[in-house]
């Protein structure tokens, strides 16, 4: 081992020397490796950043453990049975609660509509939805202790006229010095008492950055707006029927998502007499779609990076061959004074490796620049800020990749050098 090191060390020193002696040529031969490593590292980093950002997005939508059931038009073959469809109702909530134990929380939702909310001459428009107390765990939301309370089971039971507002609605309805809790607002002429304010998503631990966006809250604004009233109030006092717009289910164990979906679907079909007047979706599908996109991204970008690394390898091989042609005499001299074929093989392989390592290092520096620039652009363009952070592992892999390419590219030229006949080489002009 030490003997090998003793042989490699002078070869590496020699490689650095050659690099220094032929700066421009070396830089040109490195350009493929530089581009390859830079694009590989930058792209993988940015794609990973996007994935991370999307995970947060999925989490904000209720996470992987959320199942959404919505009302649907009947499929064509069942259209003639439309009169039998009773839609989603509170009875479905009870059925699922009884027969699907995997589901921990069920949040029935009855959309009232995009309504004008009025208070003392101020007004704003937002979505008003009828919900139960289960909305919070299903949507992964909460009410801060000093921000009142959410819709309670008693509110639902008694059809009370209470309302919980999203944090983005508050500044549009109330002056900063007014405590919204206990105030009375009007929705379509009906008076509601504000009992709570939902937590503000901005600035939570989810690292969702929106400071740069023009409207406060940015893309997450929809999460911070909205108004919530008891589902019973919404159904009886506004909608005039018992049809829910959707159900949000939260399961106990994400691992059992598929089972929970299957059980829910069977329960629903049985209860609806076989009518497919609903659809079930999960964030898993969204996540899966994204994973596919991610894989496609990685594949195509990896392909681009792979091609440039391949071209980089060819570049290095080309320059090594040219370099060997120029140094045939040197090879002859080295052989004449006692170098074995393997010594020259090592020397030229080390030179190729040195070129590719230096190229790889420059590529890493370039990739840092690219990622910084992309972060800057992305935070400008996307309020959610797909911020990618450089990962040492990825950078290490990029560098290792360049070394491998250099070694592969160096083998053929190094073999040629090793096999040169010393007498012929010394005669070479």
């Amino acid at each position, binding site marked *: 081992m030490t*003997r090998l090191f*003793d042989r490699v060390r*002078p070869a590496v020193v020699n490689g650095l*020397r*050659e690099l220094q*002696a032929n700066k421009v040529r070396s830089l040109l031969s490195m350009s493929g490796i530089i581009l390859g490593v830079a694009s590989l590292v930058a792209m993988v980093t940015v794609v990973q950043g996007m994935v991370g950002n999307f995970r947060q997005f999925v989490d904000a939508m209720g996470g992987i453990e959320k199942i959404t059931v919505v009302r649907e038009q009947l499929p064509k073959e069942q259209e003639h049975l439309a009169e039998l469809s009773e839609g989603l109702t509170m009875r479905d909530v009870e059925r699922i609660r009884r027969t699907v134990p995997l589901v921990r929380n069920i949040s029935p939702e009855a959309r009232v509509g995009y309504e004008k909310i009025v208070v003392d001459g101020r007004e704003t428009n937002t979505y008003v939805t009828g919900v139960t107390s289960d909305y919070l765990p299903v949507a992964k939301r909460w009410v801060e202790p000093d921000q009142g309370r959410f819709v309670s089971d008693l509110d639902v039971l008694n059809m009370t006229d209470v309302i919980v507002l999203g944090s983005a609605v508050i500044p549009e309805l109330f002056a900063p010095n007014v405590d919204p809790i206990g105030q009375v607002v009007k929705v379509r002429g009906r008076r509601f008492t504000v009992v709570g304010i939902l937590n503000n998503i901005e600035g939570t631990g989810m690292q969702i950055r929106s400071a740069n966006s023009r409207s406060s809250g940015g893309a997450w604004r929809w999460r911070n707006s909205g108004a919530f009233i008891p589902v019973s109030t919404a159904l009886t006092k506004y909608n005039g029927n018992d049809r829910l717009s959707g159900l949000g289910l939260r399961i106990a164990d994400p691992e059992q998502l598929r089972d929970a979906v299957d059980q829910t679907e069977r329960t629903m079909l049985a209860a609806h007499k076989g009518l497919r007047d609903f659809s079930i979706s999960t964030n898993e599908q969204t996540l899966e779609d994204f994973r596919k996109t991610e894989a496609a991204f990685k594949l195509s970008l990896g392909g681009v990076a792979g091609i440039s690394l391949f071209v980089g390898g060819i570049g290095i091989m080309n320059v090594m061959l040219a370099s060997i042609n120029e140094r045939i*005499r*040197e090879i*002859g*001299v*080295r*052989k*004449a*004074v*006692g*170098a*074995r*074929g*393997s*010594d020259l093989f090592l020397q030229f392989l080390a030179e190729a490796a040195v070129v590719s390592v230096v190229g790889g290092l420059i590529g890493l520096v370039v990739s840092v620049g690219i990622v910084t620039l992309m972060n800057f652009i992305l935070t400008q363009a996307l309020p959610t800020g797909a911020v990618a952070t450089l990962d040492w592992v990825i950078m290490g892999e990029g560098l290792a990749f360049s070394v491998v390419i250099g070694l592969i590219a160096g083998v053929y030229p190094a073999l040629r050098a090793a096999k040169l006949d*010393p*007498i012929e080489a*010394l005669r070479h002009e």
Partner: protein
Amino acid sequence: MPPLITIRGLRKTYRMGDENVHALDGVDLDFQKGEFVAILGPSGSGKSTLMHILGFMDTPSEGSIVFDGEEVARLDPDRRAWYRSHRVGFVFQAFNLLPRLTVVENVALPLLYRDNSDPEANLAAARAALERVGMSHRLDHRPGQLSGGERQRVAVARAIVGTPSIIFADEPTGNLDVKNVDRVLELLGSLIKEGITVVLVTHDLSVAEKAHRVISMRAGLVQEDRVR
């Protein structure tokens, strides 16, 4: 004392098109330790082929070579490299110093390829060899900064740095002016005092005359072997 090298029936045949060319056509010679020999002959006489074979750069087609008691006519390339690194030194007409290395690094080069090579010890040996040829004032120069005579002395230092048994000097004065010709030949001649066999390979009679023994070659055969 047994000869350093004994060669018997040495032949080297090349295939050129449809013809076989006999570069060496049955050569028998002995070289003693500490001998100053010139091999004289026109181009095509076989003198270079003989030098390459004796210098472990090439192998004969037929015949025997006993070097220091060991039969060496058919060694594998790595073993021949070992001999070049440990037993043989070369001095070339074109100096063949590596332009990117300093003088002292050029001289240390043969030691680089030995097992257990130690960079510090190599440089020390190189400095000693340069001292021997009177070039210790130019250690860190590049070959390009030296005159022809100086370069050839550096080349001689490189040839002796590994304490070889034999040095082959292939037209060592071909690129030198008159003053340096004498100086380099004198230097080479002086090496025999250290027990080194020096073989001058030349087509120039006046150069060959400096040696103590002149072997004349023609058409792959030894024509004359005379001790002066």
